[in-house]
C-alpha cells in the first residue's frame, strides 16, 4: 500500500522500474527479473485495487517483464566450456536494460535542467521599451517560414503572461466569473473601431487577471480567423499591433 500515494509520482513504467531498481539497490546490468517483476506486479495490483486507472503502458511493460522472466527460466545457458559462444548468447534482459539506461540518462539531464531553471528563475529582465517613432506603415521583414508568425504570437502571449506578474494587482479585481468569449470579441471590435487605428496588442488586456487575459487572447485569435481584425508587427522588437479591418482602409 505504500505505493498508493505515489501513483502520480511516476512518469511511466520505465520510471517505476528505475525506482524499484534504486529502492532495492539492484544492479541495473544484472537485474533479478523475478524479483523486480514481483515488485512491479504488486504495484500494478495496488493501483487496480485502488481503482486507479492504470495506463496501458504499465500493462505492456508488465507483459514484457513476464516474458523476460519466462525466457530466463529456459535453460539456454548450457554448461559449455566454450565461453566465446556464451558471450554471443542474447541476454533476454538486454533490450530492457538498454531502454532503462537510456531513459535514466535523460532523467538525469532533466534534473540538470531543473537546476538551471531554478537558477534562472531569479533573473529578471524587462520587455523591450515601447519606442514611438511615427509608427505608420513600416512593414518589417520576418524570419523565414509561415509558422513564424504563429510563434511570434505565442511568444508575445508568453511575454504578456510574464509581464502580468510585474504589475500590481488591480485595486478592483474583476469578479471571478466566466467571461463569454463572444462578448469579449465584440468588446474588442468596438474598442478598435472607436480607436480608429493600430492599437498595441498589450493594450487589449486591461485586466491583469489570468482568466481575462486568456479569454482576450482567444478572442483575438478568433477575430483574426474571422478576418475582423488585423494583427501586424511594426518593428523587430516584440510589439504587435491590432486594428479593425475596414474595407478600403487607408494604407
Amino acid at each position, binding site marked *: 500500500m505504500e505505493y498508493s500515494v505515489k501513483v502520480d509520482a511516476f512518469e511511466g513504467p520505465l520510471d517505476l522500474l528505475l525506482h524499484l531498481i534504486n529502492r532495492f539497490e539492484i544492479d541495473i546490468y544484472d537485474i533479478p527479473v523475478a524479483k523486480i517483476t514481483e515488485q512491479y506486479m504488486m504495484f500494478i495490483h495496488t493501483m487496480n485495487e485502488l481503482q486507479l486507472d492504470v495506463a496501458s503502458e504499465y500493462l505492456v511493460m508488465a507483459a514484457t517483464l513476464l516474458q523476460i522472466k519466462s525466457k530466463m527460466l529456459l535453460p539456454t545457458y548450457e554448461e559449455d566450456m566454450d565461453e566465446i559462444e556464451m558471450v554471443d548468447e542474447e541476454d533476454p534482459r538486454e533490450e530492457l536494460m538498454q531502454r532503462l539506461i537510456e531513459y535514466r540518462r535523460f532523467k538525469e539531464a532533466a534534473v540538470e535542467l531543473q537546476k538551471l531553471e531554478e537558477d534562472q528563475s531569479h533573473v529578471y529582465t524587462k520587455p523591450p521599451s515601447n519606442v514611438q517613432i511615427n509608427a505608420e506603415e513600416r512593414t518589417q521583414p520576418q524570419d523565414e517560414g509561415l509558422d513564424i508568425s504563429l510563434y511570434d504570437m505565442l511568444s508575445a502571449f508568453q511575454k504578456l*503572461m510574464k509581464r502580468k506578474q*510585474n504589475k500590481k494587482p488591480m485595486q478592483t479585481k474583476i469578479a471571478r466569473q466566466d467571461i463569454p468569449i463572444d462578448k469579449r470579441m465584440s468588446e474588442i471590435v468596438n474598442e478598435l473601431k472607436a480607436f480608429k487605428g493600430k492599437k498595441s496588442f498589450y493594450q487589449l488586456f486591461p485586466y491583469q487577471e489570468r482568466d481575462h487575459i486568456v479569454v482576450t487572447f482567444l478572442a483575438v485569435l*478568433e477575430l483574426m480567423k474571422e478576418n475582423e481584425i488585423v494583427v501586424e508587427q511594426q518593428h523587430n522588437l516584440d510589439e504587435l499591433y491590432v486594428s479593425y479591418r475596414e474595407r478600403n482602409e487607408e494604407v
Partner: protein
Amino acid sequence: MTTNNLQAIIESLLFVSGDEGLSISRLAEIIEKPHEDIQGALESLEQECEFRGVTLVEIGGAYQLVTKKEYAPYIEKLVEAPANQSLSQAALETLAIVAYKQPITRAEIEEIRGVKTERPLQTLIGKVLLKEVGRAEGAGRAILYGTTKEFLGYFGLKSIEELPPLPEDLLQEGTDQEADLFFQSFQEMK
C-alpha cells in the same frame, strides 16, 4: 546593506519596472528603508548615470530609467532597420491568404486584408512563391493566383495539404492550469 548596495537594489527594481516606474514610497515599502535613504540613493544613482546610456527621471512621482536623448538616433536605427532580410509582414499575410484560399483573385485578397495588395503580390510573384493559375469566371475574368512548386520547397512541404492548420487550431494550453479554461471557452465558442 551598504549605500552602494541600496543603489543597486533600486536600480534592479527600476530596471524591471520599465516604463511603469516606481514611487519613493513603493520603493521604501519594498526595500523596507526610510524614505530619506531611498531619496538619497536615488540622487546618487542619478549622478552616477552621467556616463551611462540611461538616466533617471521622475514622471508624475514615479522614478524610471530612460535612455538619454543624445542616443535617440541609435535607438531609431534599432527600431527602424530590419534585423534580417526576408518577407515583409504584408507579403507574409498575402502569402498565407493565397496558400489557404487559392485559387483567389487580387480583389478577394484585398477584401480579406482590407488594404491594397498589388505590391506584396508582385514581390511574391517575383520570388516565384505565387503565380497566375487561371482566370476567374465572370465579367472581368480577373487573374487567379495560387502557390508554386517553389512555395512548397521554401516551406518544406510535400503538398499544399501539409500546411499547418490555421492559428485557432494551433492554440495550445500555456499551462495545465489553463487547460480547463481553454476547453471551457472553446465549448462556449461552438
